[in-house]
C-alpha cells in the first residue's frame, strides 16, 4: 500500500477513535441538562466519564498532530479555512474542561450551576460543529488554486453540512445515554436508556437521510454498503437497548459512529478536501502529503506505539468498569 494511503487510513482511525470515545463524553455532558434530577445524580453522570474523558480527548490532539505531520497542506487549509467554527470548538472544549474539572471543587449551588452550563454548552457546540465540518470536507468547500479557502462562514452552513451537524448531535446524545445505561445503576440508568431509545428514533431518521444523501452524492458501492452498515449497527443498538442489553446497545452506537466516520472518509478518498470551485484544486492524499521519508518514520512510530496506547487505555476502562450509583458519590 502507498504510504499516503496508509496515513489517510490512520487519520481516519484516529477520527474514529476520537468521535467514538469523545462522542459519549459529549453525550453525557448534554445529559447533564436533561437527565439528572439533583446534584448527586449530576455527579453520577459526570463520574461515569471522570477518569477517562481526558484520555479520550487526546485522540483529537493526535489526529491534529498526525494531519500536520502527514498532510501539512490539509492541516493548513482546514484549520485556517474553518476559522470561526474551529475557534468556537476550541472555546467550547476549554469551557467544558473547566466545568468538568472544577465543578466539585466548590460546594456552592450557584457555582455548580454555572459549571453545568459550561459542560452542556461545551458538549453541544463541538458535537454539532464536528459534524458540520466533516460533512463540508466531503461535500466540498471553495478552495482556490493555491489551496486557500476562499469562502466565508456561510459557505459552511449549507443544508448538507447542517444535517451532518444534527446527525452527530443526536447520535452522540444517544451514544452518551447508552454509555450511562452501561455505567450506572439505579433509576438514572432506567431513565438514560428510555431517553436514549426515544432520541434514538429521531437520530436514526436523521442518520438515514444523511447516509442516503452522502451515498447518492458519491455514487460508489463502498459508500452505499458502509452507509447501510451504519444504519444496521445503529438500529441493532436501539433494539438492544429496548431489550435492556446495555453492552450491546453501547456497542451498536459505537460501531455506528465508527462506520459513519469510515463512510465519510471512503467518500472523500482519494481527496482529503474537496474544492467546490474546480476538482483540480482539491487537496488529495498525494498533493497534500509530506515526503515519503517523513511518512516512513511516522509509520514506524505509529505502528510501534498505537497498539500500546490502545492496550493501556483499554486497561484503564477495565479498572473503572464498576457501575456507579448515587450511593457511591461521597458527600
Amino acid at each position, binding site marked *: 500500500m502507498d504510504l499516503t494511503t496508509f496515513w489517510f487510513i490512520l487519520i481516519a482511525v484516529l477520527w474514529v477513535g476520537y468521535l467514538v470515545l469523545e462522542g459519549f463524553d459529549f453525550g453525557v455532558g448534554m445529559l447533564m441538562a436533561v437527565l439528572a434530577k439533583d446534584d448527586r445524580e449530576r*455527579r453520577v453522570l459526570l*463520574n461515569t466519564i*471522570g*477518569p477517562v474523558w*481526558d*484520555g479520550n*480527548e*487526546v485522540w*483529537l*490532539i*493526535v489526529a*491534529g*498532530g498526525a494531519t*500536520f*505531520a*502527514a*498532510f*501539512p497542506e490539509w*492541516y*493548513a*487549509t482546514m*484549520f*485556517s*479555512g474553518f*476559522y*470561526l467554527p*474551529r*475557534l468556537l470548538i*476550541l*472555546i467550547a472544549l*476549554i*469551557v467544558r*474542561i*473547566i466545568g*468538568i*474539572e*472544577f465543578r*466539585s*471543587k*466548590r460546594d456552592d449551588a450557584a457555582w455548580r450551576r454555572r459549571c453545568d452550563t459550561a459542560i452542556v454548552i461545551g458538549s453541544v457546540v463541538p458535537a454539532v460543529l464536528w459534524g458540520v465540518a466533516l460533512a463540508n470536507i466531503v461535500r466540498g468547500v471553495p478552495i482556490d488554486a*493555491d489551496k*486557500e*479557502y*476562499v469562502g466565508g462562514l456561510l459557505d459552511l452552513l449549507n443544508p448538507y453540512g447542517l444535517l451532518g451537524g444534527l446527525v452527530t448531535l443526536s447520535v452522540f446524545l444517544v451514544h452518551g445515554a447508552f454509555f450511562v445505561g452501561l455505567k450506572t445503576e439505579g433509576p438514572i440508568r432506567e431513565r438514560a436508556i428510555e431517553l436514549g431509545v426515544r432520541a434514538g428514533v429521531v437520530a436514526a431518521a436523521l442518520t438515514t437521510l444523511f447516509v442516503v444523501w452522502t451515498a447518492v452524492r458519491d455514487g460508489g458501492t463502498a459508500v452505499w454498503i458502509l452507509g447501510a452498515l451504519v444504519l444496521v449497527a445503529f438500529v441493532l443498538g436501539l433494539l438492544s437497548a429496548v431489550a435492556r442489553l446495555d453492552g450491546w446497545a453501547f456497542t451498536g452506537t459505537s460501531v455506528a459512529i465508527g462506520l459513519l466516520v469510515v463512510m465519510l472518509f471512503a467518500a472523500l478518498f482519494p481527496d482529503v478536501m474537496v474544492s467546490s470551485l474546480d476538482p483540480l484544486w482539491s487537496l488529495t492524499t498525494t498533493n497534500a502529503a*509530506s*515526503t515519503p*521519508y*517523513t511518512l516512513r518514520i*511516522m509509520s514506524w*512510530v505509529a505502528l510501534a*506505539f*498505537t497498539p500500546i496506547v490502545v492496550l*493501556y*487505555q483499554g486497561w*484503564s476502562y477495565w*479498572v473503572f468498569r464498576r457501575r456507579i450509583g448515587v450511593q*457511591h*458519590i*461521597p*458527600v
Partner: protein
Amino acid sequence: MEVLDLARWQFGITTVYHFFFVPLTIGLSVLVAGMQTAWWRTGDERWLRLTKFFGKLFLINFAMGIATGIVQEFQFGMNWSDYSRFVGDIFGAPLAIEGLLAFFLESTFLGLWIFGWDRLKPGLHLACLWIAALGTVLSAYFILAANSFMQNPVGYTFNAEKNRAELTDFGAVMTNKVLLATFPHQIVGCFMVAGAFVAGVALWQMMRHPDRDASTFQPAFRLGAVVLLVAGLGTMITGDFQGKVMTEVQPMKMAAAEGLYDDAAPAPFSLLTVGTLDGSEEVFKLEIPKLLSFLGTGTFDGEVRGIDSLQAEYEQKYGPGDYAPNVPVTYWTFRAMITAGGLAMLAGAAMLWSTRGGRTPSSRWMLRAAIVLPLLPMAANSFGWIFTEMGRQPWVVFGLMPTASGVSPSTSVAEVATSLAAFTALYGVLAVIEVRLLLRYIGKGLPELDPPRDRDDIDAPLAFAY
C-alpha cells in the same frame, strides 16, 4: 493592526499563558510522586497527607494546562497556515509523536491516579503517577525538538519546486544542539518552579498556622527549598551551555540580548544600561569586563559579534531588510529572567537558613517572601521564553522563513481580532477562577485521611469523585 500583528499577539498571549501551568505540571508531578513514594516506603502518614494536599493543587493546575494546551495544537494551522505548509514535513512529526507518546500517557495514567486510590494496589497506583510524570517530561522533549528546529534548522533540505522545507535526517532534528541545550535548561527550570511552589506554600502554612500541621509541612518545605536551590544551580550550568550554543547558531540573538552593536573582543557583560538602547545615546551603564566573552565563547578574550556587523552580513546573505530583533525587549527579558531566577534562589537560601534546626521564622518579610517565592521562577520561565522567541525575530524559522511570510493569507483581520479578543477575555476569567481555587485549597491546609475502607464493599463511596 494587520493580521500579522494580531496573530503574533495571539500566539504570544496564549502561549505565555499556557506556559504558566506547564512548568509547574512537569516539576510538581515528580515532586508529588516523590512524596507518595516516601509514604509508600516508610508508611509515614505525613507524606500521604502531603501527597493528597499537593496532589490536589497539582490537579487544579493541570486542568488549566490541558484546557489552554489544545489551542496550541491548532493555532499553527489557523493563524500560521503558510508556516504550517512550509515546515509541516519536519515540524508536524514531533507534534504528532508528542501526542502519541506523551499526552496519552499523561492523561490516561493521571486519570488512573486521580480515581484509582481505592481501585489499584498501592504500588501500582504509585507507578501510575510516575508514568504520568514521565509523560510530562517526554512531552517537553518533543515540543522542544519542534521549537529547536525554528531556532536552528537542521536535517532538512529546501525543495524550491514545492516551496517547502523537507526532512532529510530525523535523527539530526531529534539531536539538534539547541534541543540538547534547551531541554535540560527547561527541565531544571520546571523544577525551580515546583520547588519554589512547594517551599512557599509549606513555609506559609508553617508561619500562618504554626499550631496546624507545622511539623508535617517542615519536611515538605525542606524538600521544596532544596529542589529549588539544586535546580537553580542547574539552570546556571545549563544556561551557560545554552548561551554558547546560542552565540554560535544565533549570534544576533546574543548581540541583541546585550545591546552590543559593535564586534568586541573581549566583550563585557552589561548589567544595566540607562538611556536609549538603540545605541544613539547612553546615559549610564554598568558592566563586567570580559564576562560576555566567557559566556558566549568560553574564553575571556573570545570575540562576540555585534548587531551592526551581523546586520551587514545578513543583508549580503538574505537581501535587504532589518535582521535585528527588538533590542529593548531582548535585552530586558534576558536580564529579568536571570534576576527573577537569582532572587528565587536567594530567597530560598534565606528561608532554609531561617528554618535551621527546626526553627520557624516569624518576620513579616519572610511571610511575604513565601507568598512571592512561587511567582519568581514562574516569571523567570516566561521571560526566558519571551527572550528566546523575540530574539529569533524577524524569523519564524531562523534563516529560512521570515515571520511575516508564515501568517495565514486567507484569514481576515476580523477573524484574528475575534479570536484574540475571545481568548484574552476567556483566559482572564479563567485566571481569576484558577487563582481563587488555588488559594482556597492552600488555605484549607492538609486534608484529614479517610478511614481505611473495605475494598470489597461495592456500595462504599468512591475514594475520589468529581
